[in-house]
């Protein structure tokens, strides 16, 4: 951040920081759920597909003339249902989560094409835009949205018995089963929670950009996984941090923004993010070897 601030006089302006925040909201919301799923020892590469399907349903609901008060819950419920489907698949079939969600991602994306029949949904109402673009007493509304989501996620993970079950399953699934933890139910609930957050992200995405394009959600799953791991989550499960994930999101969005403001070609941003991800994983592995 210091580097970007020194390279561009515009980086640390209030307006630019608000811009970064607005662009981070959907990714940040998804990352709260991704952190929980990764702590559980799972992973979900289909969140982009869940976001896309929810966004399409939201777009169609708007086009059918439904009001915000119905549209937003429909979108969120769609996300939760698709997430629960992922969880059910993983819990019942014992298929590794990365493979199961890879499969469902293809299905969700196909559904997107079949359902919107090759046209973009555009010109949607902007009645919910204030959730991302507005502000309350000078504080950007996105702060409250992110704050609320992370408060709920933190309470679930650190203050409820459910959170301890998630950590137990992620640390040692066999042991968790032996002590009578409902492993399957916990998995379904965690994936459903991530799906629900993807549904919320879809509401926010449509509110901000007012259209649903066929490429919607393209890179968001990878960005979410990268942010969560940059934030200190262990991909093998058991360990993870919500605050860390939020920092990971900020890191990715600040890199994207800062490189552009510094006049560096945007093609470098994926190199920077990918490189740092590898550094984190290698350091983690070296540390493990040292300890073991």
């Amino acid at each position: 951040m210091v580097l970007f601030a020194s390279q561009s006089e515009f980086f640390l302006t209030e307006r630019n920081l608000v811009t970064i925040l607005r662009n981070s909201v959907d990714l940040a919301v998804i990352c709260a759920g991704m952190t929980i799923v990764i702590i559980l020892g799972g992973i979900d590469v289909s969140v982009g597909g869940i976001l896309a399907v929810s966004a399409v349903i939201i777009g169609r609901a708007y086009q059918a003339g439904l009001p915000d008060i119905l549209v937003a819950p429909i979108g969120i419920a769609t996300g939760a249902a698709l997430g629960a489907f992922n969880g059910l698949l993983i819990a019942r079939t014992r298929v590794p989560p990365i493979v199961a969600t890879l499969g469902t991602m293809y299905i969700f994306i196909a559904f997107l094409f079949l359902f919107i029949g090759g046209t973009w949904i555009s010109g949607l109402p902007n009645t919910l835009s204030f959730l991302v673009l507005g502000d309350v007493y000078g504080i950007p509304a996105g702060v409250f949205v992110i704050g609320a989501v992370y408060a709920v996620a933190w309470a679930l993970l650190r203050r409820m018995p459910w959170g301890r079950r998630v950590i137990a399953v992620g640390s040692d699934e066999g042991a968790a089963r032996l002590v009578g933890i409902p492993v399957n139910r916990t998995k379904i609930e965690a994936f459903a929670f991530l799906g629900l957050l993807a549904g919320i992200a879809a509401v926010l995405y449509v509110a901000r950009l007012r259209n649903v394009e066929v490429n919607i959600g393209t890179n968001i799953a990878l960005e979410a996984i990268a942010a969560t791991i940059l934030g200190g989550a262990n991909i093998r499960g058991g360990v993870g941090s919500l605050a860390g994930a939020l920092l990971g999101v900020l890191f990715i969005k600040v890199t994207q923004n800062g490189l552009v403001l510094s006049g560096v070609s945007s093609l470098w941003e994926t190199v920077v993010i990918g490189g740092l991800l590898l550094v984190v994983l290698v350091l983690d592995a070296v540390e493990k070897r040292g300890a073991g």
Partner: protein
Amino acid sequence: MKRSVLLAGAFGIVIASGAWAQTDTTQVAFIPQIAGIPYYVAMRAGAERAAEELGVEYVQEGPVSTNAADQLRIFESFVTQGFDVIAISPLDEESLKPAIARAREQGIIVLTSDADAPNSERQFFVAQALDQDLGYTLLDETVKLVGDSGKIAIVSDSPTIQSMQNWIAAIQERAETSYPKIEIVSVDHTDGTAARAYQFATDAMTRNPDLKAVLGMASTTCPGIAQAVEAAGAIGEVVSAGYCSPNTARDYIKSGAMPFSVLWNPADLGYLTVWVADHLADGGEIADDLEVPGLEAPVRYLPEDGILLLGPPAVFTPANVDDYDF
């Protein structure tokens, strides 16, 4: 068990494709750069109209993301199915070159349409408009609004899409030769989502507070850059414009965030592609400009590059945008 299911599936596909190849009517396939965007849906409408009038069979299938490997796979599947004519809007010339050469060896007529692969063995390029005309028109129209000096940012889709690289080059060339005080400050490439286009446009405005215009190279970038201008409250200060379909740009053309958009009529392009395909499949030759029934302007033939040119670019403004639906 699993293997026998797979074998049965593969067998079914082979039978289905075999039956496909046995019909007598001319079969024309077109592979767009991506399935499902309104632009190619409009192109299909024009192509299907021509197919019906000329009695040919038309199939259009494209990759679900702008992925060159997927596009190549689709191309090869049409070759395997024995289509008479395959037209393609290439994402990546290099990966397609050997496949196009092999298709020609099998006697398949290969056209490029919508975008070109000039160094491949394609027979003709059915062009909507010359890249140079498009680049010049977009910058000329922008200059009419913002004056002949100032900063302009460009937001494009994937850098592997040759036609967009050509448009960017044409815009840069026009700026250097005709408007020396226009400065192209950045060229950024999105992953095809509106969110990334929005991000790049906003960042460009932040970095250059005196930015005059943001130009989008693809319909995928248009809602994002226009939204960025609207959200920044910069309507009237920053012009967004680009190669945007009327449907994706309509709201913003009317709001003033995107005062105009430059493109052509893709339905006419689809019509011309099928017409040329049918003409060549029937043994016809092309040696001169063409009068194509069903198209208003005559089609120009540029023999040195093997290009068939639909006509001059169209400019969509608040006055005419409602006449188009794609």
